[in-house]
């Protein structure tokens, strides 16, 4: 019954990134009903998600900006260096 945990963890993360398909959604819901470990994982992802949400709000209030152009350039540069690695 816990063989679905690895897949469930990917679906739980994906749920923050995209709309799950109906079948994915149902499989995940059913699994969460029976698996406490994955429920804990779900709760911790939700906690982190609202933590980052609060953090962003706070930063925006403090600075009124998102990401400085200098950082953007730095990120781009770092990415071009690592683009061939699987990450």
């Amino acid at each position, binding site marked *: 019954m*816990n*063989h*679905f*945990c*690895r*897949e469930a*963890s*990917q679906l739980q*993360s*994906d749920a*923050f*990134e*995209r709309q799950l398909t109906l079948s994915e959604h149902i499989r995940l819901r059913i699994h969460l009903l029976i698996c*406490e*470990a*994955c429920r*804990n*994982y779900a*709760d*911790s*992802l939700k*906690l*982190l998600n*609202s*933590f*980052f*949400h*609060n*953090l*962003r709000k*706070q930063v925006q209030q403090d600075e009124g900006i*998102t*990401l400085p152009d200098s950082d*953007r350039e730095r*990120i*781009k540069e*770092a*990415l071009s260096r*690592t*683009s061939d*690695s*699987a*990450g």
Partner: protein
Amino acid sequence: MVQETLLAAWRGRDRFAGKSSVRTWLVGILKHKIIDHIRKEIRDRKLSEAVKSDPTSSLFNADGSWIEAPENWKENPQELCENEQFRHVLQGCIAKLPEKQQIVFRMREISGEDTETVCKEAEITPTHLHVLIHRARLALRTCLEFYWFGGRRS
């Protein structure tokens, strides 16, 4: 390496045809030994990089179940946000992520960029992004459980 070569030469002395000098024969064996060694190095490095960038192999059993079940975290996100110490631990955990995961995770969660922007800037597909973010979340959660949530319970 030289020892291994001489050993291999000794074991294979029957196969020495005598068509070339002993020196050429030994150098030939040595070359093969060096190539084998480099291949092994590359294989080991790729393997350790793969394990580092994909935490699923160290967190799940082969059958897909958790090796160590995630604990229940009882914290208030608003309080956590105001907790300097937690933010410090979190920064440390994010800094431990492999470079690419770290970059996309920071863009997505800290800067709040949307998927499209992150994919464009990182030059990756949405599917690849989802995998990277998923791996980052798994690793981050494990790190926090160890350095924050687990430590406070005990």
